[in-house]
Structure formats: structure tokens, C-alpha cells
């Protein structure tokens, strides 16, 4: 029973990582850039949701929608202003700009919302399920987070597989030039990717803060790096990979804390990442690309 409880804890935080990782993976797969500002978009999403519920008194669902709208607009704006002018140049230049954007968002959030942490009210209102006299507890957040992350994963898979826009995205991801020649509007497709990624970030922000209630300007950065790690474990660019990587990372983290050492759990998590990459150099579900000679 004890093991089960830790497993559930692991899956719970893992699902949060998974949703963030899905956003990373989408953007990486299509725009081929590491968007280090993604974690900060999550933070903005959480703040918007917090303000809508706590200051305007609107219901949780409205706050999520508002967060999604704001983050989508923010994502498109960031892409247009900061990333698009650099498209086609060194990917490192874009990476550094993304870091600049990340600094900007964190400091802007501090100016707007102050440094004092906000206590995020969970969007989940129903009671936790308790089994075996409380030895095993499954909270509502766990259920919602897992459900949403699966939903998002399935939705994204269907979207990229079935819709016109989704197919265009895959085409751009495979070969940007060829896609352009086939009449696909690459700029629009990439903007769309950022829009979807940022909307996902908003959902991730709300779920992250429902699980971990403290909200401050730096809230997004550490989970962002974790999620990035998760995306790499799963094979960056792969949608089911992000999900798998996220949940695996959550479980590894929880179990290493419980059974090995809490002090060294960071080291253990990253050591596992390295081991996985040694065995599967492109992640668990990543595509192995043979270089053409």
C-alpha cells in the first residue's frame, strides 16, 4: 500500500511534468528550438488564473479559459517579436533570445504581482478518495491532472495526425523547405504551434499550481527544466514520448526520494536521464535518424 501511495504521488507530479513537456516537445518538434521561456509562460498562466478567481471572483473554468487566451496571445507575441526575426539563423541565437524572454517574463511578473508568493486555490473542489483507512489517498488533483494530460496527449496526436493544420505542422517539422515549396505557410504554422504550446502552458500552470500551491515569479523555471528533461527522456519531438518521459521522471523522482536519498534525488534523476540517453541516444520514443552520406 505504501509503495502504491508513492507511485500515485509520482504519477501525479509526473503528469504535471508531462503536460509541460508536451508544450516543449511541440515547439521543439516544429520550430526546432529549445524554448526556455516556456516555463515562464506557465507562470503567467497561473497568475492570470489566480487573479481571475481571487480578484474577480469568477469560477475556475472561466479563469482557465482566460489564462489560455492570455497565454496564447502572449505566445504568439513572443514568437513574432523575439523568435521570428531570427528564424533561419543559428539555433543558439534563438536559444539566447528565449532566455532573454524568460528573464523578461520573470521580472515583469515581479513588477506586476510583487514578490510575495500567492497561495493558489486548487481548481479541484471534490474530496480526496481514501482507501484502507487513509493509508492510501488519491486526491482530486491527481485524477484531474492525469486525466487532462492523457486528454491533451490524445488530442494532440489526433490533431497532428488528422487535421489539415496538424499535417502541415508535421510537414514543417520533417522538412521546412520542402513544406514551403508544397505551399504550406511555414510562418503561420509555426505561429500556430506557439499558440497551441502556450495554451497548453496555461493549462499546465493551473494544474501545477493546483498540485503545488505556491505561486511566485520563479514558479515556472524549475518545473520547466524538469519538464524539458522529461521531454528529452521520452524523445524530444515525440508526443507520446513527452507523456511517458514526464510520468517516468515523476516516478523516478518520488521513488529515489523515498528509497534512496532525499538529499541526492536531483543527482539521481539526472543520472537516470544520462543512462537513458546512453542506451537510447534519442530518448525512449525518439526517432533514430541515420545520417545520409
Amino acid at each position: 500500500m505504501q509503495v502504491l501511495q508513492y507511485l500515485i504521488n509520482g504519477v501525479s507530479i509526473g503528469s504535471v511534468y508531462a503536460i509541460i513537456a508536451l508544450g516543449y516537445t511541440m515547439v521543439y518538434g516544429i520550430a526546432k528550438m529549445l524554448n526556455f521561456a516556456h516555463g515562464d509562460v506557465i507562470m503567467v498562466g497561473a497568475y492570470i488564473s489566480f487573479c481571475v478567481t481571487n480578484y474577480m471572483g469568477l469560477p475556475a473554468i472561466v479563469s482557465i479559459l482566460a489564462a489560455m487566451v492570455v497565454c496564447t496571445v502572449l505566445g504568439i507575441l513572443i514568437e513574432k517579436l523575439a523568435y521570428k526575426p531570427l528564424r533561419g539563423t543559428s539555433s543558439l541565437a534563438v536559444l539566447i533570445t528565449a532566455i532573454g524572454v524568460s528573464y523578461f517574463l520573470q521580472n515583469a511578473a515581479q513588477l506586476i504581482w510583487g514578490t510575495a508568493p500567492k497561495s493558489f486555490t486548487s481548481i479541484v473542489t471534490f474530496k480526496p478518495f481514501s482507501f484502507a483507512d487513509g493509508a492510501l489517498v488519491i486526491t482530486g488533483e491527481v485524477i484531474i491532472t492525469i486525466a487532462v494530460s492523457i486528454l491533451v496527449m490524445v488530442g494532440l496526436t489526433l490533431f497532428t495526425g488528422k487535421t489539415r493544420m496538424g499535417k502541415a505542422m508535421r510537414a514543417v517539422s520533417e522538412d521546412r523547405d520542402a513544406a514551403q515549396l508544397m505551399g504550406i505557410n511555414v510562418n503561420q504554422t509555426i505561429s500556430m504551434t506557439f499558440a497551441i504550446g502556450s495554451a497548453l502552458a496555461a493549462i499546465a500552470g493551473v494544474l501545477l499550481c493546483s498540485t503545488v500551491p505556491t505561486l511566485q515569479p520563479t514558479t515556472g523555471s524549475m518545473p520547466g527544466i524538469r519538464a524539458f528533461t522529461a521531454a528529452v527522456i521520452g524523445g524530444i519531438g515525440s508526443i507520446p514520448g513527452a507523456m511517458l518521459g514526464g510520468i517516468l521522471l515523476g516516478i523516478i523522482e518520488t521513488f529515489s526520494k523515498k528509497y534512496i536519498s532525499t538529499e541526492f534525488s536531483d543527482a539521481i534523476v539526472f543520472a537516470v536521464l544520462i543512462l537513458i540517453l546512453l542506451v537510447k541516444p534519442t530518448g525512449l520514443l525518439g526517432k533514430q535518424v541515420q545520417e545520409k552520406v
Partner: protein
Amino acid sequence: MKKLLSNKTTRTNTITYLVVTIAFLVMQILSSLGMLGSATKGYLVPLCAYIVMAVSLNLLVGVCGELSLGHAGFMGIGAFTGIVVAAVLKNVIAGDVLRLIIAMFAGGIMAGCFGFLIGIPALRLRGDYLAIVTLAFGEILKNVIGNLYIGLDSEGLQVAFSAGSVELLEGGKMLLDGPVGATGIEKISSFPMGFVLILFTLFVVLNLINSKEGRAIKAVRDNRIAAESVGINVTAFRMKAFVVSAFLAGMAGVLFGLNISSLQASKFNFNTSINILVFVVLGGMGNILGSVISATVLYILPEAMRGLDDLRMILYAVVLIIVMLCTWSPGVKNFMDRIRTSIRAKLRKNGKEAVNNE
């Protein structure tokens, strides 16, 4: 022979050495005239360390084409090794300069060894995957050093992973105390030593670039398969670049660590690695003098903006983004070129009119 060595490289290298030397002399003269404030004097040594970090990372990122997100980890290894070595040698070696040099080499070698160990698995990977592994190693190192306890007493060194395990005799001193880090470090770094380290780094890196090793490294970056086809062992060369870069970062760490009285492992986190990467990218990939200049400017910039209070860091972010866009974006470049030509055309026209009017 000079002709064959390509005059252009020789000239660029000479300019690099000259710029650094002149900057050093100017600062020394100003300092001796008492024209520098304590803040400026305080920047000098860390700045030297960051320049060395930027140059050594440029060897990896710019010249070798390998993205590393954990360079600060090597700096950390060097720093803490240097602190321990300097403390152990305190009663053995009298001269601070000699002690600093020994500590620097010790830190460099330790970082180089870790670079080698990390390189074995990491260099099997490429591109963004290598980046994430270096990030992971940086975090692991930070985590491990943050839980490391090293004490020194008359019996010798004691190393442990828990606070209770280090039991020191009377007069013993904790050199490294887990999350509290190293405290009460004797400051033996100095600006002239920092300058010497920069010269040494430039010497090593520029020599490396202009040797058969450097050609091989660039060849591996430009076209791995072709490089292999002419007998270049790609892994060996990535490894050489990685170890040299880690070695120099370790030395920079010692310079940095022995200039500050309290140092924590968390200093060498992802953010520091990223900051150094920003220096490199902004200075230009593979451009060594560019790294030196951009490290200087970007290190001073947030300090110079202290007067802006609340807006300081947000403006730094904005400046960073704008500078990136201006230096890298093809669109902005074209725009600026157009403006420049149109201004020139106008000036010419005005000049002509002026002539006509006369």
C-alpha cells in the same frame, strides 16, 4: 613561413592580445592613481574569471560546435578544489602568488579530469542531446558538492557526505560545509593574476585553434563525416576540446573562488552556465576577442544599471533581446544597411547641392 601561416590570423591574434593588455594597463594605472571606486575594483577579478569562462566555452561552442549547458559545473569543481588546495598549502607555501598558481593548476586538472569522465558518455551524443546531458551533469555536480563536507585539521583532510561524519580536532576548520559552502576563504586572487590567467587562456585557446588540432576540431564541426574520412578520430577531438575547455573553466573557478570569502555550490547552477553561454553567443561564435568584449560588457551592464532600481533586471532582459535581434536577425541587418545607404546617399546629395550652391 609567416606568409604561409596566413597573415590574417596572426593579425587577429595580435590584436586580441593587445586589446587585453592595454585594457589591463589602463585599469592598473587608473587604480594606482586612485581613480577607481571600490565597486569597479570589486568587478575586476570576477570579470577576469568570466572572460576566461567565456573564452573556454567559446572553444567548445564556437570552435567545436558542441552546445554545453553545464559549463559552470566545471568552474565549481575548480573553485572548490582550489579553495581546499589553497587552505591545505597555507602553512606549506608562503607566497600567495605561488599558492594561487598551484591551486589554479590543481583546480584545472580536477575539472579536466571530470571533463574527461563526463565526456566519455556525453560525447557519444550530439546537438541538443549533448546539451541536455551537460545540463544534467551541471545539476548533479551542484547537488553533490552541495552535500559535501570537507574538514581540515592537524591530522589532514576529512571528506564526507554528511555533516556529522567530519569530526575535527581542536583548531580544525571546515573548508566546505554542505549547503553553507565554503566560508572564511582567504582571498589570494588578484587582478594581475586574473590578467595572467586571461593571457594564458588566450595563449592556449588561440594556439589550439591555429594548430593541426584546431583544424581538426573545426573540420569535425563543419563536416563530421568528411573529417572521419581523412582519418580524424572525431570522438578523440571532441574529447580534447572538452577537456581543455573544462581545464580552463576549472582555473577560472579557482580565480573566482579565491576572490570571494563565501561560496556556495548553488552559485554554479544552470543560470550561471547560461549567462556564460550568452557571453559567447553575443560575442560571436568562434570569435575569441568577441567573447572577451561581450563578457566584459555584459558583466558590467547589470552592475552599471544599479541606479535603475526596480527596472534593472527587466531592462537587462530587454537589452539582451534587442541586442540579439540586432546582431543576428537578417531582417534588422538589411533594414540597418538600407538606412545607412540612404543616409549616405542623402549626405552625398546634400554635399553635391552644397557644391552647386557655391
